[in-house]
């Protein structure tokens, strides 16, 4: 499916190693917000990043989104070393970020918000018909529950707004989608709606980075969970093999348990890296 008028860039195949961060750090004045961070994202995989307040999750998101340049370390995208110096660079690479404040225009309808900044035109005027048609196609593929795409954004529920924000990020055909606390402000049903949507993203073969506070959400949709603590990696688990107690222990710093698992995982993840680079 091509959502934009540009030719679709090559889609990554499931399991492709899309994103690899090695030794990434970030300092704000006297605060070392991130130290020596490693992160791997594969196509068709949901990676959750969890951590206490101030652990550095948002800072990591901002580095990937091109809001802050990192101080050191390397970022590889599809195996190539890249520099993400600006939000435009990030978008260009195929990284789509949905920030916590969704940044939607309340006075515009769903179609206008989805296509904002890259509207389709027909004879030099807006091609409302084509945009509406493709909006429906996209929302249908995401099984999104939006009753009408011609109502102003303000009349939608929190979950529907989140859905629109996520759907909008897909219009540029990204290969990685980063979601910063997408369920933080949502009720039970709306959270389920957004989690479903995250599953759809995985089915589309996207790499998904999910920032969350909520262990239950993470266990519901994530394949891997990466724990940050005080700006450092403090565990990288397969969700299937880990209990919520272990994750919480890693978040809060009862590290005896986590460290062993982390060490165990390190060898495993190194082998994945070698596999992918072969």
């Amino acid at each position, binding site marked *: 499916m091509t959502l934009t008028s540009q030719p679709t860039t090559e889609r990554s195949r499931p399991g492709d190693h899309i994103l690899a961060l090695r030794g990434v750090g970030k300092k704000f004045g006297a605060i070392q917000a991130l130290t020596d961070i490693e992160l791997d994202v594969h196509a068709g995989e949901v990676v959750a990043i969890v951590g206490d307040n101030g652990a550095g999750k948002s800072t990591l998101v901002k580095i990937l989104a091109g809001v802050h340049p990192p101080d050191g370390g390397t970022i590889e995208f599809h195996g190539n070393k890249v520099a993400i110096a600006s*939000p*435009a660079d990030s*978008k260009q690479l195929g990284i789509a970020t949905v*920030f916590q*404040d969704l*940044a*939607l*225009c*309340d*006075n*515009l309808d769903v179609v*206008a*918000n989805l296509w*904002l*900044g*890259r*509207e389709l*035109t027909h004879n*030099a*005027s*807006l091609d*409302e*018909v*084509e945009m*509406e*048609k493709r909006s*429906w196609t996209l929302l249908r593929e995401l099984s999104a*529950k*939006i*009753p*009408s*795409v*011609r*109502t*102003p954004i*303000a*009349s*939608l529920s929190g979950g529907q707004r989140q859905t629109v924000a996520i759907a*909008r990020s897909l219009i540029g055909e990204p290969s990685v989608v980063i979601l910063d606390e997408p369920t933080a402000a949502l009720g039970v049903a709306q959270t389920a709606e957004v989690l479903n949507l995250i599953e759809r993203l995985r089915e589309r073969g996207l790499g998904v980075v999910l920032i969350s506070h909520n262990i239950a959400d993470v266990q519901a949709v994530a394949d891997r969970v990466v724990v940050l603590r005080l700006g450092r990696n403090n565990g990288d688990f397969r969700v299937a093999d880990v209990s919520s107690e272990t994750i919480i222990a890693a978040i809060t710093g009862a590290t005896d348990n986590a460290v062993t698992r982390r060490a165990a995982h390190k060898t495993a993840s190194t082998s994945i890296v070698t596999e992918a680079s072969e």
Partner: protein
Amino acid sequence: MSDTKSSAADVAQDATASTVATDLQDERLIHNAGAGGAVRAFFTRVRGGDLGTLPVIIGLVVIWAVFQLLNPNFLSSTNLVNLTLQCAAVGTISIGIVLVLLLGEIDLSVGSVSGLGAAILAVTFVQQGWNPIFSILLALAVGVAIGLLYGFLYTRFGVPSFVITLAGLLGFLGLQLWVLGPTGSINIPFDSFLVQFAQQWFLPAWVSYLLIVLFVAVYAWQLVSQARRRTAAGLSAMPAGSIIVRAVVLLLLLGAAAWYLNLTRGVGAMFVFFLALVLIFNYALTRTRWGRAVFAVGGNVEAARRSGIRVNRIYMSVFVLCSTLAIVGGLLAASRLAAANQGSGGGDINLNAIAAAVIGGTSLFGGRGSAFSALLGILVIQSISSGLTLLNLDSSVRYMITGVVLLLAVIVDSLSRRSRRAAGRA
């Protein structure tokens, strides 16, 4: 589709995925089919605070009815022809105000800038003997420069537009007086095409009808081709019946108005010029990427910036258009008066231009409004002014009544914003 019998429930139940347009498939949608449905949808929208042009149209009808009762000459063809001519200059300025209000900004200097335009025209054309075309181009260039200055100050230093343009109000009034020099008042020759255009040129009756037919034909054709494309795309489309009804109603309304004006002098060239500007800006605002960006910036600057809209360019373009339209309005006013003087652009022009945009339904809070606000708002203001003149009431009463109407418009704006919030459409 146009039968009124089928209730919403029936439509929803008959709906199967294969027969219902893509955009009508959600079971929660309340289907408003047929004429009754259109009326229901309209009331839902109004209750939700989406008033659009409704209050101003009601206001206009009330004002016309009251003045007609007080003075039977008010709705005479002669008076209405005058009314249309009085609307053009300030209405043109008001289009620019609509644009800045859509961004949630304001331009308080449009009166001074229009006066400066009039002064430049008169001095270069009459005193220096320039070809009037060059005088007009110079005045327009000055308008562009003023807008660029405002845009630069706003985007570079983040000074509120309120303050920048307040400084501009004083500064450009001073410049106007300086340009006019000691003469103070300059008459523009009656035989110049500018004065002819503003005072003497009226469309021949047949031309006015031809224009109306062409306009309605284009309008109907747009609706038809849009309906076809929507059907082809599997979306719901406006039924042919609705299109015909709309086109016929529009044709009759415009035709009747032209016929009534044609009973005396007819449709003035300057008024047609103003209408054309309204239509052009309506197109630009609703059908182009630039217009979409203007609404987006007015609704949520940060969202607009993050979606890659070059926000500063949008601010720049709007300030430039607003100042340039103010100059155009000043040129029209000078042509109609056949003079430019120290009072050009002064008095109530500034506030009438701003009040017209707000009375016409453009929100002071940004992101909501239409180019038609300028037309409807200025009709209200000039109707009040014309009616009070017929009643031999002086400007003291006119100022007070216009003030009250403006206050009402702002209250309507604030209330509808509140009910939009309550209805989740803020």
